[in-house]
């Protein structure tokens, strides 16, 4: 007997952190208590992308979408919705206060999205291979093994125009073709799941929600280039994704979709999972391969490219998680279908992890060519707290900031590069008027300095120098020459560094200098930080006319730098003040001036 209703509970990392496991267990308990276990199935599934409002629960086929669900809500969902067919109104996503949106399609967050990579996320149970198979899973592999020759597969990818989603955007078919044509063996297939950009988590969610799509794609690649062994390099900080991969691999092996003589085709392929120890540079392909070999993760000069001399000096195809997830769909629906999505140079869709000062933070998949404004304001729901938009940072520590005047730029590889940023892996951090651009570039440079492997001096020394100068500026000790120095060091790093990390590390500095030079000048000339972020440039003063002499600020001041008689205006000793802002926060009369 089939089920009439399905209750899908998000089991991505973000929702698990807010107790989705308990929600799942409670729902199951309530369903059994109501005697509905033969009619209703509760399914744990991958990330829905709407992390801002998690944990989310979706009821199908009703298409009801519940947000911010708590474990104790399970009783009401079962008793009201599942037994009586009435929506639990208070848990529906409420956008306009007056109108309760019950259906997913009514929610603006989903309206402009187009899901290829995340096609199964939030629909299937990632821990059950049968559900993936039911969604045409392993059908592309079937087609590849029995109906297509390796060259047909390359041709299909070429027509599709798929480019690497890891950042640089190298055509995928070309990578595969180079490896295929090298006369050497064995060959290897590697999945780069070492997602390290701050705020980016699209690869984690893809693996957590649909691990089999990666396995299937890697197997297809193995068949195409003539490799029999694949490795997935994933950061050890992703325990849930690792667990789902392990389950997926053992299920695929059990069914014979991995291993010897797959589906009777005579083709063997096996996949192993290897953990990264958390170094950012290991996301760079040559460093990743070094780490995979058991060596210290440091990049090598290219050429030779991994396609020719990669893992253990053998030809290796290495692609990012998101690139892999596109492959089965392209083979099934055809390269032509895929090439109709996107822009002239960038085909298909891109997943972005939208975070920062935006109302709907979450995972977003849009066709290339969607504008930044659509992503941030239509899907993201605009800036939190009604503040003013200042800039959006794309591409993580390797990317740059994009100011408001370029918000209508359609997103693709070339356009972002033109603006001084990069596509990167797809992190997108939104900043508002309270963010200081000097502070932002200081944060990213600090990150790159921490993560620099130290092999080449432009990156090792240059990054440190950039950081020192930025610290000087943020402390109000900057000189006019510093701006020129930042630019010179930055350009040198771009030109002379060994790998992508060093070459792109100055991007946050250079792009903020390009679009927000005025803010740097204010820091240097006026010793002022307009966003009040750089604490050393702040000055707190008591306005004598407003001060009633209550003494609260003096009492709360941690360094006792405020003095004055009772009921008479108080005074801040600027020499001793540490600019903690306590006086400003505690004053009930608005008598403390912050500038």
């Amino acid at each position, binding site marked *: *007997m089939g089920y*009439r209703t399905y209750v899908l509970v998000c089991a991505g990392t973000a929702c698990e952190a807010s107790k989705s496991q308990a929600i799942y267990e409670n729902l199951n308990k309530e369903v059994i208590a109501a005697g509905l276990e033969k009619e209703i199935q509760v399914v744990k599934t991958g990330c829905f992308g709407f992390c801002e409002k998690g944990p989310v629960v979706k009821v199908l086929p009703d298409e009801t979408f519940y947000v911010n669900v708590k474990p104790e809500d399970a009783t009401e969902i079962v008793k009201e919705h599942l037994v009586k067919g009435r929506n639990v109104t208070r848990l529906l996503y409420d956008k306009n206060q007056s109108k309760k949106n019950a259906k997913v399609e009514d929610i603006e967050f989903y309206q402009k999205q187009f899901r290829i990579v995340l096609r199964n996320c939030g629909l299937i149970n990632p821990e059950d291979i049968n559900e993936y198979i039911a969604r045409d899973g392993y059908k592309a592999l079937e087609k590849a093994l029995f109906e297509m020759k390796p060259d047909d597969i390359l041709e299909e990818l070429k027509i599709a125009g798929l480019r690497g989603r890891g950042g640089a955007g190298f055509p995928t078919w070309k990578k595969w073709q180079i490896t295929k044509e090298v006369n050497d063996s064995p060959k290897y297939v590697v999945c780069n799941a070492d997602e390290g950009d701050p705020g980016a988590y699209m690869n984690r969610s893809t693996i957590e929600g649909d691990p089999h799509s990666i396995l299937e794609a890697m197997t297809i690649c193995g068949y195409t280039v003539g490799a029999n062994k694949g490795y997935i390099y994933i950061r050890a900080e992703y325990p849930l994704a690792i667990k789902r991969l392990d389950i997926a691999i053992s299920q695929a092996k059990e069914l014979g979709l991995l291993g010897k003589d797959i*589906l009777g085709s005579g083709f063997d392929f096996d996949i192993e999972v290897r953990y990264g120890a958390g170094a950012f540079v290991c996301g760079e392909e040559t460093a990743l391969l070094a780490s995979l070999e058991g060596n210290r993760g440091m990049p090598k000069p290219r050429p030779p490219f991994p396609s020719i001399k990669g893992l253990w000096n053998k030809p290796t195809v290495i692609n990012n998680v998101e690139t892999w997830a596109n492959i089965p769909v392209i083979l099934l629906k055809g390269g032509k279908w895929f090439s109709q999505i996107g822009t002239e140079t960038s085909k298909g869709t891109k997943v972005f992890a939208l975070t920062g000062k935006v109302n709907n933070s979450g995972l977003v998949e849009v066709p290339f060519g969607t504008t930044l404004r659509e992503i941030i304001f239509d899907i993201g729901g605009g800036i939190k707290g009604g503040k003013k938009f200042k800039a959006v940072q794309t591409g993580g520590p390797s990317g740059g900031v994009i100011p408001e005047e370029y918000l209508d730029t359609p997103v693709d590889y070339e356009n972002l590069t033109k603006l001084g940023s990069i596509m990167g892996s797809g992190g997108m951090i939104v900043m508002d008027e309270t963010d200081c651009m000097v502070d932002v570039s200081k944060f990213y440079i600090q990150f790159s300095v921490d993560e620099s492997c130290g092999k080449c001096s432009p990156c090792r020394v240059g990054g440190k120098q950039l950081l020192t100068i930025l610290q000087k500026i943020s402390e109000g000790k900057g000189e006019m020459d510093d701006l020129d120095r930042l630019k010179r060091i930055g350009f040198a790093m771009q030109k002379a560094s060994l790998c992508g990390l060093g070459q792109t590390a100055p991007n946050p500095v250079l792009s903020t200098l390009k679009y927000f030079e005025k803010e740097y000048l204010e820091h240097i000339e006026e010793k002022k930080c307009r966003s009040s972020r750089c604490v050393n440039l702040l000055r707190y003063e008591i306005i004598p006319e407003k001060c009633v002499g209550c003494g609260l600020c003096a009492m709360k001041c941690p360094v006792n730098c405020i003095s004055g008689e009772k009921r008479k205006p108080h005074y801040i000793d600027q020499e001793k003040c540490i600019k903690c802002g306590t006086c400003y926060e505690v004053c009930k009369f608005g008598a403390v001036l912050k500038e």
Partner: protein
Amino acid sequence: MPKLTLEELRKLREDTKKEISKRDVSDKSILVLVGMGTCGIAAGARETLQAFVEQIEKKGLTNVVIKPTGCMGFCYVEPTVEIIMPDMPDTLYGKVKAEVVEKIVDEHIIRKQLVSEFIFDKPAVDIVK
């Protein structure tokens, strides 16, 4: 000797597909609403709903969505079922016991003929909306 042959994979996919396609509501044009108020449940709406799920699966219909809904206001003829589909007027059936379901699926959904003995009335427009 492969563990799983091509034929076995295809069969596995066909078997599991039916189940998973029930979760997908896009491209489905026929909507069956079963009234699941207290009155409906007391009169056996749960059995009716389950019978619809079974019949739709048995007849291999892939474009039907079955949804439980609240009371439709026809408590005297529960269980009530409303069927909305192209080429047919929106129809409200009453007294749809589980035994009647097969007839309604055959006549109304497959042959596009009204089953007049179970038609009672149309609810007021505002209730439908």
